[in-house]
């Protein structure tokens, strides 16, 4: 497709369940980002990939969060033993270039996670 695609769009998980969120970036985009957006807040940075390399994971809130991009295209964000505070929209974004000011990043529609 033309844009960043995320799945599932909506996920309801029971507390303690593991979830996996998928992101298909725009074809050919080198950089891929994950952001978390809680209700009423702005998106907050989680992690960044340049091709398959995870260059920054400083925003991951705990070791229950894990992201990968093994072949430099599709990425998966995994959350283990989900807790209620994990409820948020998880946004994936991609951009064509690496680390240069002036580079626009394009967001997907997000995966809405509700932990009950």
């Amino acid at each position: 497709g033309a844009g960043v695609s995320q799945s599932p769009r909506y996920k309801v998980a029971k507390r303690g369940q593991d979830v996996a969120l998928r992101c298909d970036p725009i074809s050919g985009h080198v950089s891929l980002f994950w952001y978390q957006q809680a209700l009423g807040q702005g998106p907050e940075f989680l992690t960044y990939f340049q091709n398959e390399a995870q260059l920054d994971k400083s925003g991951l809130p705990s070791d229950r969060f894990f992201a990968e991009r093994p072949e430099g295209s599709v990425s998966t964000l995994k959350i283990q033993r989900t807790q209620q505070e994990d409820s948020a929209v998880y946004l994936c974004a991609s951009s064509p270039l690496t680390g240069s000011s002036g580079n626009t990043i394009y967001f997907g529609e997000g995966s809405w996670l509700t932990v009950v």
Partner: protein
Amino acid sequence: DQQVKQNSPSLSVQEGRISILNCDYTNSMFDYFLWYKKYPAEGPTFLISISSIKDKNEDGRFTVFLNKSAKHLSLHIVPSQPGDSAVYFCAASPINFGNEKLTFGTGTRLTIIP
């Protein structure tokens, strides 16, 4: 500590008038600033950006102004149209990081009144 602040959670403007959305930042390492627009149930969409070497950037009805000494930027929309009703996020990135680590404000919900 909120490094990017949008102090007005909401704003209502008459159609045809000017909308002014404000944003303040505290981190002097930020050198690139962006505005994103977000409709319900959609991801943020890039609107306009400005580098710290400029104080103004214009794109059609949208103009962004940057006051580095005051650490303040604003987005002007003129004339405002009903389709502009959305949540607007200000975002910033630091020197040497490009924009892979954007810091966002909490957003301002703009409502254009027909």
